[in-house]
């Protein structure tokens, strides 16, 4: 059986707390998809729920707001891992409920 739990924990810790150019607060907010000022808030919402609809113009808007490419990169990674984590955890809770275990 494969077990990604420890790998998942270290991945999340790395992108939220490791060395980066976006502040830990912004990275965590991107991961949680909440509490972000515009234009980052709308962008992170799009990454989380309509990633295929992201355009060059969306990235351009972040650049114009003063974000560097590395900051954009980090925000995208945190937003993607955050949304996938919420999906994953939701399904594990459903699995526990289905099998009657906690």
């Amino acid at each position, binding site marked *: *059986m494969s077990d990604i739990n420890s790998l998942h924990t270290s991945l999340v810790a*790395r992108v939220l707390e*490791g060395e980066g150019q976006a502040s830990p607060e912004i990275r965590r907010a991107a991961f949680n998809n909440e509490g972000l000022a515009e234009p980052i808030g709308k962008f992170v919402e799009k990454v989380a729920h309509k990633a295929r609809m992201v355009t060059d113009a969306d990235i351009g808007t972040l650049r114009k707001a003063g974000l560097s490419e590395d900051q954009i*990169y980090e925000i*995208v990674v945190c937003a993607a891992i955050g*949304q996938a984590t919420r999906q*994953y955890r939701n399904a*594990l809770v459903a699995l526990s409920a289905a099998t009657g275990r906690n």
Partner: protein
Amino acid sequence: MRLAILDHGHGIRTKAMLALIRVVSGHPVVDAVKLAFYRPGFYRAGGLTQEAMRGPSEWSIADRELMAAFVSKVNETEFCIAAHTATSAIAYNDGAKVSATLADLETAPLSEPLRATLRMLGKLTRESKVDADDVLMVLAAGASEQQIKDALAVAFAFNVTDRLADVFDFAVGDPKAINAGAKYLLARGYR
């Protein structure tokens, strides 16, 4: 690629390695590889993806590659659909099975545990949630609890990767390059 740093921002040693990959493979370096080698101390999800896709599991490698292709189809991520359709087709030695699954899950020639698992992964990917009834249907179809956990690990890996591929705008290679990449993934994995 929408961010120039992912194309050209690697260190000198990594640039040399990417150039070597380009020469040896005879194909452009795929954007997924460029991403994997950019600031590996930050993202570096290869170990997790390797465990989900190649770690011990009751699911075959072909099954897990099919899950990756299926999740990517739901996300409409062209790069990952192409890459994992090809990888699954080679692993099964049955491209028709993979094509049929992506065209219509309900009529595809699949085992019932795998069909039910893909159905649940599709709902989770589309709606970001499933409930106990959804899981009970997968268990009733014959999948084990561990198989469901393993499938959820695959879905996690590709719900991350698909978003990155879409936002960074990974280029979809030509069929020869996609096939070469698929063979590499089967020979060497995701590390």
